[in-house]
């Protein structure tokens, strides 16, 4: 099985071949690695990779895993090469959408529709976990719409302000 992988800004190919019940050969960009992989609990595995031992936490994400290694958490996005390229980079364009970076509450809205804002200008203040954070304009422009209302509880990714 061949995967297109992106990790820490790199794009590589990784081929997984099952050799025994828990034994694999993983070829990463042409370099083969002999890996013994055993699950050590839900979301954890012990890897012996070319003889080196690693305990890995495997946190499932929509597009792959965050792999928790002893000193690093590394996001690995991957999909099977055969049907891969279609899912590749979709580029956002047009108006800038400012969304909630965390779940929380809108404490204050500092702009209104139609207002011109400079890059870095405060748009609204959110409170989460007792801290207030000001969300700023990603670029200069005119406020096209304001979905945020004072007192509104929002989830991560909720649309707050659109700048055109």
């Amino acid at each position, binding site marked *: 099985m061949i995967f297109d992988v992106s990790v820490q800004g790199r794009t590589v190919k990784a081929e997984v071949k099952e050799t025994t019940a828990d034994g694999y050969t993983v070829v990463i960009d042409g370099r083969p690695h002999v890996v013994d992989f055993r699950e050590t609990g839900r979301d954890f595995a012990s890897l012996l990779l070319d003889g080196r031992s690693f305990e890995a*936490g495997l946190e499932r994400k929509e597009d792959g895993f965050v792999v928790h290694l002893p000193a690093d958490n590394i996001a690995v996005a991957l999909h099977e090469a055969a049907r891969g390229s279609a899912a590749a980079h979709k580029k956002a364009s047009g108006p800038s959408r400012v969304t909630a970076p965390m*779940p929380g509450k809108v404490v204050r809205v500092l702009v209104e529709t139609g207002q011109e804002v400079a890059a870095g200008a405060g748009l609204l203040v959110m409170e989460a976990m007792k801290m207030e954070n000001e969300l700023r304009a990603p670029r200069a422009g005119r406020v096209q719409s304001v979905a945020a209302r004072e007192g509104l509880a929002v989830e991560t990714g909720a649309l707050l302000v659109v700048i055109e």
Partner: protein
Amino acid sequence: MKGFQKILIANRGEIAVRVIRACRELGIGSVAVYSEADRLALHVRRADEAYEIGPAPSRESYLRMDRILDVAKRSGADAIHPGYGFLSENAAFARACEEAGITFIGPRAETIQAMGEKTSARRIAVEAGVPVVPGTLHPVTSDDEIRREAARIGFPLMLKAAAGGGGKGLRLVPHADDLATAVDRARSEAKSAFGDDSVYLEKAVLKPRHIEIQVLADAHGNAIHLYERECTIQRRHQKVIEESPSPFLTPELRERMGALAVALVKKVGYVNAGTLEFLVDKDREPYFLEMNTRLQVEHPVTEMVTNLDLVKLQIRVAQGERLPITQEDVRQTGHAIECRVYAEDPERGFLPSPGRIVALRVPGGPGVRDDSGVYEGYEVPIHYDPMISKLVAWGRTREDAINRMRRAVSEYKVLGIQTTLPFFERVMRHPDFLAGDFDTSFVDVAFRRHEVVREAPWEVAVAAAAIQAFRDRKARRGALSQSAGAAPVSGWRVRGWREGAGGRL
């Protein structure tokens, strides 16, 4: 003297668990209180009894004195431990406990009032001969007065909530232009955190170290200090790493600050555990900042180097006992470091990252302590402080403690939410931290500037992820064939299907 039979813990999270542990070791019953959002919090699970006190927002639950006192009476608790935050420095609450005939495990209401209100504490310190940072000695409320005082003190200055603590309602104001925004933000935070929006101003001390002295006093006039904690490494004016001893203090300055602290404690007739916070400037001059009239988050650091149990000592002193130790008995042995594990993303400016802890593995082994308030499967709520645990490492020397902390961090796994653990891994090998050479700007400035970047073992991560993905796909196909097998079909059809599936794998 009669000991407590039952203690109510007016708090949540790891500190409530910490107090429950002390109660259990002392054979004292524990009563938890919890908000609607906290039914499944660890402190509720660990306590002997637990009672709901209201909706999720603190103002409607953990800050409701009436409901907490009602639970105390109903459950027959003879004392209340307030932990830190919430009502721990609320003089009205301490007084209400006294009036209800329930012992408040902390100082007397008058002392909380005198030392808890920051400008009054500064005035008392001045009277006790303890140096303070130049600034206002009274709270200021009107914008006019704030502008006038700011001009007198000069910029940069610190704007602080008079009723504050824990970094809330606190802002650095670099220039006069930033004053208005900072005042708005500080007041709004102070109002929501403490119910009081008055502020005061202090000259900003440049390149300061944040060093505090732990004190302990009984009701019989005995007061001792338990040496210092170095709390300089902060983000958003909140501590993230603490250690003891401080690599910055000389033996002379350590003794001097200890003596100043004891003098101030005796001056106000302080009883129970408390902490005096100092800024120490680059010339090693200490300035008293404020007193925390409660147990501190970072108390385990002191416990590890002094071999004392501060919570048990708090309880014994509150029972009216004399301190079982004198100043001469207190020794600082070895070195301890604490890392506060927050549900925050260090890669995105320490933004809160609440959510469900999908999987959790906690370090152990020699010299490692994890004071946690969470567990695997627990949902970290958005309503409260994002600290989920305090990881503490002890070693004979600072170097040993750092190496041990790095080892412990490497064993610690929290899946499902972002935490500050990866940040600690980087700090524990940062040249400035290893050299003990840092000030309060470390996280924002020196950290990035001087960090030695190490290449992560990304191939290992790719191999792990690719194999797991491979196994997931294989398991999905296996499940498909199994569900087909479970259907009431004839033997030959099952065999045929399995062979077909096997051929595809």
